[in-house]
């Protein structure tokens, strides 16, 4: 649980996105959590479903792709297998 939050929060900081900006990108991709939910996921006080986690990971990865990165944030299935 703590690691899920850590992965997302570290990536968010690295991407230089505010929680609002990340939430906005996540909603555009079809994420259905509120901004407070996303704040909770990042703080570790709530756990996203696999799908909501993947949408957040995609929002972050899209941001990194724009800067020359290649999907540094693992998806749920990668985290389970790795």
């Amino acid at each position: 649980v703590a690691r899920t939050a850590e992965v997302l929060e570290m990536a968010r900081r690295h991407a230089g996105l505010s929680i609002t900006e990340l939430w906005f990108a996540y909603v555009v991709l079809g994420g259905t959590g509120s901004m407070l939910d996303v704040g909770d996921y990042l703080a570790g006080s709530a756990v996203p479903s696999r799908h909501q986690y993947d949408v957040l990971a995609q929002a972050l990865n899209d941001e990194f792709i724009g800067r020359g990165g290649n999907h540094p944030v693992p998806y749920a299935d990668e985290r389970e297998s790795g």
Partner: protein
Amino acid sequence: VTGAPTTTSLAAALDTIAAVRLEDGAVEAVLQLVVSLSKATIGGVDGASISVLRTQGMETSNATSDEVRDIDGHQYATGEGPCVTAIRDGRLHNVVLSAETARWPRFVAAAAAAGVGSMLSIPLTSDGRAMGALNLYSRGEPVLPDASVTGAQALADRAAVVLANAITFATSEATNRHLQTALENARLIGRAQGVLMAREGCGSEKAFDILRRASQRTNRKLREIAEEVVAPLEPPSTPEP
């Protein structure tokens, strides 16, 4: 030469500003009018400028001469002087520069070399936040009299309103463009998910999974993958010859 502006000349100046309509390029024109009028209608003023606070720092948006721009530049570079101080503390500074060597050593030296004796900087504020400053330069030594300060404040008030409107407008324009793009992207991704759901007989989460795996495989943003999914179904944008 030094003297208070007559009430009539200032009133006429303010009427001139009020008559300018805020269309494209008008903000620039009004701010230029404010610096020109400051110099022309306020006694003892030899040069005027407007400094604006931008994300990357302060800059002179309008000035009555290049010399004035240069002196402003010394303030931004050193972080010293009435202008940068007025923007920082949100207060008016009406000073004889030779009396401020202890506070602003580098700027006072540069200003003296340029022949500036005194300076008035009035912050341009909106909702208690300084957006910039109106700067009046004088070759003379005495500070500007109260009547001149009052006149300058009236011009600064006009400039502040125009500047605040321009900032609000620019911000809302950018926000609107941003929201418009986001909305189009959200629709596009939703459409692509719908196409995949119909094609694969799956739910929306599985459809998202297909999109994000393609994004990962090709290292492209999910939006680009969604574009490709819906592209074959879109009518061609230009008719075939």
